[in-house]
């Protein structure tokens, strides 16, 4: 019979057991995570007439805004190697996928608060469910992008097959960073606000609506921004070559995996402390 023991001691003190438990729980949480994502996706669309269309309306609106700004001459964007509308459209869609991923761990954990404080289920299920939902939502956006580039005749050809992989790395990076901030974000809602605000600035030093400047000091934050290679590679898979970002992409991917693992560990260890403060 399974024996569970609870003591005040931190589980970090027996790391081997901790890591084993993490993976056991992860493998046990697939079923629940699947169910939770089906639930959330169903609920999301059942009370909506436009349904899935909402996934496009936001990026489309942003695209139209930027095209207008560019055409009216209020803002002049240096020429991009693909038509500007396509640049902005792909940029905003890819960016929205990243933002969703970044905020998903905190939002999902917050939404599951009452369940977390009352029922003992593998906590990994919350994050896994967030991941499944992101795959679903991003899948729709991805399809839309692929169709758009093919119609406009700027498709990268066989490279399109790598596009899902590039997006996957983007999603996982978002989740890793978001997950890292979740424990503190659960205690203080300043974190959530700070992310939303901060990311507005980060967007302008990412190749989302502006191309990377060729010279000048503004180029520096663009080049050191870890999201830049992810977006560039994703867009490259979509529309073809646009600079050598592969090394950056590989470095970010590997660092992301390490961050993801430790964020997961922290999330797991600190969850009882957080729940205690929430229900206290």
């Amino acid at each position, binding site marked *: *019979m399974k024996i569970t023991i609870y003591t*005040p001691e*931190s589980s970090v003190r027996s790391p081997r057991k901790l890591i084993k438990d993490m993976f056991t729980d992860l493998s046990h949480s697939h079923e629940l995570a699947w169910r*939770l994502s089906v*639930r959330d996706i169903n609920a999301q669309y059942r009370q909506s007439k436009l349904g899935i269309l909402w996934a496009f309306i936001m990026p489309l609106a942003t695209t139209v805004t930027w095209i207008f700004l560019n055409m009216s001459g209020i803002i002049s964007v240096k020429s991009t190697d693909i038509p500007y509308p396509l640049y902005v459209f792909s940029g905003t869609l890819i960016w929205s996928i990243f933002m969703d991923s970044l905020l998903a761990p905190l939002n999902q954990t917050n939404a599951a608060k009452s369940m977390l404080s009352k029922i*003992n289920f593998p906590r990994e299920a919350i994050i896994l469910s967030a991941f499944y939902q992101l795959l679903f939502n991003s899948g729709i956006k991805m399809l839309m992008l692929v169709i758009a580039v093919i119609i406009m005749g700027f498709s990268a050809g066989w490279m399109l097959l790598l596009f899902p992989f590039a997006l996957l790395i983007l999603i996982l990076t978002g989740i890793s960073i978001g997950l890292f901030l979740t424990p503190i974000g659960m*205690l203080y809602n300043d974190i959530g606000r700070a992310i939303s605000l901060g990311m507005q600035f980060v967007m302008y030093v990412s190749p989302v609506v502006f191309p990377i400047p060729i010279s000048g000091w503004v180029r520096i934050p663009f080049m050191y921004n870890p999201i830049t290679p992810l977006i560039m590679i994703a867009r490259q898979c979509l529309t073809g070559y646009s600079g050598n970002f592969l090394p950056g992409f590989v470095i970010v991917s590997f660092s992301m995996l390490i961050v993801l693992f430790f964020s997961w560990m922290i999330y797991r260890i600190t969850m009882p*402390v957080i*729940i205690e403060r929430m229900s206290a």
Partner: protein
Amino acid sequence: MSETLIKAENISKKFCLDLKTSLWYGLKDIGSEMIGKKNQFHDVLREKEFWAVKDISFEVKRGECLGLIGRNGAGKSTLLKILNGIIKPDEGRIEMHGRVGALIELGAGFNPILTGRENIFNNAAVLGFTKEETQQKLQSIIDFSEITDFIDTPVQNYSSGMKVRLGFAVAAQMEPDILLIDEVLAVGDMGFVLKCFNKMDQLLNNTALIFVSHSMPQVSRICTELIVLGKGEAIYQSNEVSKGISIYYEKFPQLAGNVTGTGQAEIKSIYLTSGEKDSRNLTSLEIEHGDELTVHLNIKFNEELQSPSVGLMFYDKEQRNFGEVFNFKDEIVLDKVKGSYSFTAHFKEIQMGQGVFSITVGLTDFTGGTRKSIFRMQSVIYFRVTSAKHGWAPMQFTPEWKIENEQ
């Protein structure tokens, strides 16, 4: 079948009174959890902290039920959460053997927009069922919940009782070794509560049960052992459940209830005597089961009343009216009375079991053949009955027994 399934040793848990401080401590705790250093704060209270649970130890074997009772905020739910592994103890050690099922919240994972049927799957998944298991049990869940007609209606249109039904129906499919139940049967109609109890009785054969409740009849029905919690500490712990319930009741102040009336008559005084004892000289009158008791009552009729009648009603601590006196008019005839009168009612033998009881006095008048309430004073006086034996029911009869050998 009597192995120990739950073993709790010296469990303590502290909470913080103030939210801002609590969050700050939370941040610090996250830090020390991650470094894994022995937290030097575990056994001392920091500023603005208190012990929500202090030094609780117990064991529960298969087939036993431990009841946790106490006033709101006594630490019952906190203790359950620690046992369920949702929060960590600050001191002590817990061993749980086998599968744990918790009925702390029914219907966890329900989404109001989705239908009852869909939510069965959601709830079941949260409780750890696989999809196949749920599919198999789906029909029995729907049958148990008795809401077949509304099973494809969104849950947001359900009444709270219906949600509880559906939640319990799913939870009842668990086959745990340890079951933790927290106050979940409070909603739901009588028929359903009984159904739940039958289910729990069934489960009890094979589980170690921990039951948190404010309903003493439920506690006395199911528990084999009892812990009375007060400010986080166990103030009583024993397998004499009835005694524990009496102790729990003593923690509530005895309040005289409301008075309603027309003002045509009023009670000037009421007191109780039993042998040498007189409630006027005592803070509370205590008598033995089987003792005599006299109720002394002085009533002033402010206006002339046609044909008034005094009624005495006995209430137990659950505010159940379990007995009354209905022979006033057979003994005393009052005709057009005014002014003060003293009445006594003598009970030769008090048959109540252990506990505290109150008397409610009512006066009715019959004018022109219609009955009219003149006043009613709820729980105007209390007395305590002691007994060597404990029994849960308010009335404890002691008939004469005879035995005959038929051969």
